[in-house]
């Protein structure tokens, strides 16, 4: 499985010289290596670049949205395959008890916030609530489950052959009490034993204390769940927009010191991971 990180920032795009190395685009990951289809995780501003990479190859694309906060959907309207006539594109997202996915998404993808409506795109777009049970998309096995974050939010576990990754970019497991008990830890089933865990590590511990309930994790919490789940490699993602490259370097060093068994990497725009 080949992962290309097109956007690793959280909350809002943050381009500039201070963030040039890790990048300023918001959440978007391309999961590739299946000739039958491509997976894209989230549709933040990094999605424009993912679209350039996937344009024209004709494969169906499955876009898995963790939730509908703007930093995870803002790139949708700039995803080139959506404008390719007849291109098959499926958008999956968390269910809501009140409004279906199309209704919620079109709040953004319609005037006055966006000039083009979903039905006016060239691609054949289908929207789906993620199912409660694991399902298969091409060669990929996909599992979605709710995780702790404000509003309906899912994390994903994706498998291909023996390889498994988990993607929980917006996740505050500490709000459920990080007791070290797997069955009482949000996201555990998704994260258990994965090769790569892409997990929210937005805050330093000091910042987290000021932002409890905002839906994100400190580095300490990300390391704790990675260790609990036995993830081989933790990839810190959803970087705080105010954090410069130097701050993320410091957080990465701290995470590596705390990790009891496994590697730690900080996601950056353009980073490619082979699993």
């Amino acid at each position, binding site marked *: 499985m080949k992962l290309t990180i097109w956007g690793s920032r959280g909350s809002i795009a943050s381009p500039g010289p201070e963030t040039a190395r890790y990048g300023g685009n918001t959440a978007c990951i391309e999961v590739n290596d299946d000739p*039958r289809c491509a997976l894209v995780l989230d549709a933040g501003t990094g999605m424009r670049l993912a679209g350039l990479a996937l344009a024209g190859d004709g494969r*169906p694309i499955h876009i898995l949205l963790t939730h509908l906060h703007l930093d995870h959907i803002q790139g949708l309207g700039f995803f080139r395959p959506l404008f390719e006539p007849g291109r098959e594109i*499926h958008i999956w997202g*968390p*269910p*809501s*008890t009140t409004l279906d996915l199309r209704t919620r998404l079109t709040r953004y993808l319609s005037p006055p916030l966006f000039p083009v409506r979903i039905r006016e795109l060239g691609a054949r777009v*289908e929207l789906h609530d993620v*199912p*409660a*049970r*694991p*399902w*298969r*998309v*091409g060669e990929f*096995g996909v*599992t979605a*489950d*709710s*995780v*702790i974050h404000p509003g*309906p939010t899912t994390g994903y*576990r994706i*498998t291909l052959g023996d390889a498994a990754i988990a993607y929980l970019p917006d996740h505050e497991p500490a*709000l*459920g*009490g990080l007791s070290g008990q*797997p*069955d*009482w*830890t*949000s*996201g*555990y*089933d998704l994260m*258990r*034993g994965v090769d790569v865990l892409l997990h929210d590590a937005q805050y330093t511990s000091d910042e987290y204390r000021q932002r409890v309930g905002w839906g994100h994790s400190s580095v300490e919490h990300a390391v704790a769940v990675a260790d609990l789940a036995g993830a081989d490699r933790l990839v810190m993602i959803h970087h705080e927009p105010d954090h410069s490259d130097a701050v993320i370097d410091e957080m990465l060093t701290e995470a590596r010191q705390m990790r009891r068994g496994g590697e730690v990497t900080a996601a950056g725009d353009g980073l490619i991971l082979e699993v």
Partner: protein
Amino acid sequence: MDVLPLPKEARMGDVAQQAIELILARQLASGLAVPVLLVDAIGDTLFFNEPAELIFGRRLDEIDALPFDRRAALLAPLSMDGEPIPPEELPGMAAMRNRRPAHAVFQMHGLDGVLRPVEATAIPLESTGGRVLGAIVVLWTQRDPSRPPGAAG
């Protein structure tokens, strides 16, 4: 579209993580001063907080597992007139069955054997997918005028 069941991934090991609604409910209950019991969708005990330990007459840590049938047998709930109450009519089960809050006043035996009058209000925990995951049951001991407010027992 190629969407197929994944039997292997459906059995992701022997440790089944609780739904986040239950995780959050337990965390909330653990921080409350009112007695709270948390049960799963079939009524089995998932958690009760320290104030509830006074009503149940046993610490949570002393109990390995407390399935619904066993809990109902041990607590042996009675109406205020002393008539046995069918376990399925207790507020937690009624709330899940009817998908609406339920309230009752009754007596029950603690695990220490003491019969106590209690009030209970249960709220069903229904996920965004429409699945009933369990119920959160808030309990009050009926006030004994000779004891200070908040004393359970």
